[in-house]
């Protein structure tokens, strides 16, 4: 890795920034969505589910295209963001983060939903009799017992973000040092004479980052499990 160029380091830095931002900012919404899907029953619930899964079903380029239309300068949201907050999404790493967040959202929600659904409701009842409000019981019982699922969702969404190409390319473009994330750079290098070596280095770097993420999640999981000596009381 001694031979990595500045541009490659910049792409890696950018990818990490985008992936972490995407996961961090979509996590709260994913938890709310996971909760609603796990605990509420309402007619047409599968429509919400479909909506959540849309970014997975649609080709990423289409998702990117829709984001471009939604957040572009000509759109209501885009113009509002720019005039009120001075935020521009198109050709910006923040746009790339939004693309990653949207594309990774279903991967984040599913395991969280499953985890919430499988927490034994009798434990929640016990917490309530011990003085915990529903919110308190969620934070002190449901949340820690759902840690493996939440972690799982984060790992999936993070990994997906590391490889996100189509949607990012549409909204953020591929500007070296600015929005050219690792996948975009790999793609560019694949077609460049002499770019093969760079592409290979970047693939290796992605793999290493992914391995680090797995290791981290594995350790966190083991730590949590040791804390609880297994989750079956």
């Amino acid at each position, binding site marked *: 890795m001694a031979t990595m160029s500045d541009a490659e380091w910049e792409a890696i830095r950018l990818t990490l920034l985008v992936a972490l931002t995407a996961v961090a900012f979509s996590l709260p919404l994913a938890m709310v969505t996971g909760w609603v899907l796990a605990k509420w029953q309402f007619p047409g619930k599968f429509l919400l589910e479909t909506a959540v899964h849309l970014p997975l079903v649609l080709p990423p380029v289409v998702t990117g295209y829709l984001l471009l239309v939604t957040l572009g300068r000509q759109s209501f949201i885009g113009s509002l963001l720019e005039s009120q907050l001075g935020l521009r999404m198109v050709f910006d790493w923040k746009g790339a983060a939004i693309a990653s967040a949207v594309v990774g959202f279903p991967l984040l929600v599913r395991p969280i939903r499953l985890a919430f659904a499988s927490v034994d409701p*009798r434990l929640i009842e016990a917490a309530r009799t011990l003085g915990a409000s529903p919110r308190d019981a969620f934070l002190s019982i449901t949340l820690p017992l759902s840690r493996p699922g939440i972690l799982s969702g984060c790992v999936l969404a993070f990994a997906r973000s590391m490889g996100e190409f189509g949607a990012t390319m549409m909204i953020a473009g591929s500007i070296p040092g600015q929005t050219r994330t690792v996948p975009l750079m790999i793609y560019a290098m694949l077609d460049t004479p002499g770019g093969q070596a760079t592409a290979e280095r970047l693939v290796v770097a992605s793999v290493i980052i992914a391995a680090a993420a797995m290791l981290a999640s594995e350790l966190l999981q083991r730590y949590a499990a040791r804390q609880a*000596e297994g989750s079956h009381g």
Partner: protein
Amino acid sequence: MSRESHLQFSAGTKYATGFSVELAFDAAPGITAIVGSSGSGKTTILQMIAGLVTPLRGSILLGSRTLYSQTLGISLPPEDRKIGYVFQDYRLFPHLSVEANLHYGLARSPDQKLELIQVAEKLQLKQLLKRFPRSLSGGERQRVAVARAVLQSPALLLLDEPWSAVERELRDTMATWIESVVEQLSIPAILVSHDEASVARYAQKIVTLDKQ
């Protein structure tokens, strides 16, 4: 006998399976036992008192507080009832140590009249405080469940088979201690137990639930 902490229960409910139960009784401070055969609805009664099963009719009053009233449309959420509940199936929190389990209700209680360490000592749990529920024996789990419910200094204590998994000697220790706690806090305790000896010895009143 202070009216302030008197339980007046008169309610009934019905499960989807068709089973229905109905009961009316009063419980003054001290231990009131509910006895009845397996499946007669004892646990269901306790769950109605705790707010975990909603009655279909009637009312439940604790001192001057209305816990449930069909006519008034009142049904306090469980966390506002200040009721300590020892579940028949314990329901310890698997991700918390014994100490954290005991601390759970204590930390959420406005008036902490009992000390964690002293209660743990009484119920022979002191050696287990750092352990997790998974590695406890049946009787140990049961004692943690009792300690956890009592430690929140409740206004009413529900005990569903609280000593079914311990030997006679420990059972007497537990019963005597609960008797003293109930007296100290001046609250009613509802005891469900198939152990006739302890019911006869410790209950001031016995309510019998017939299978309907």
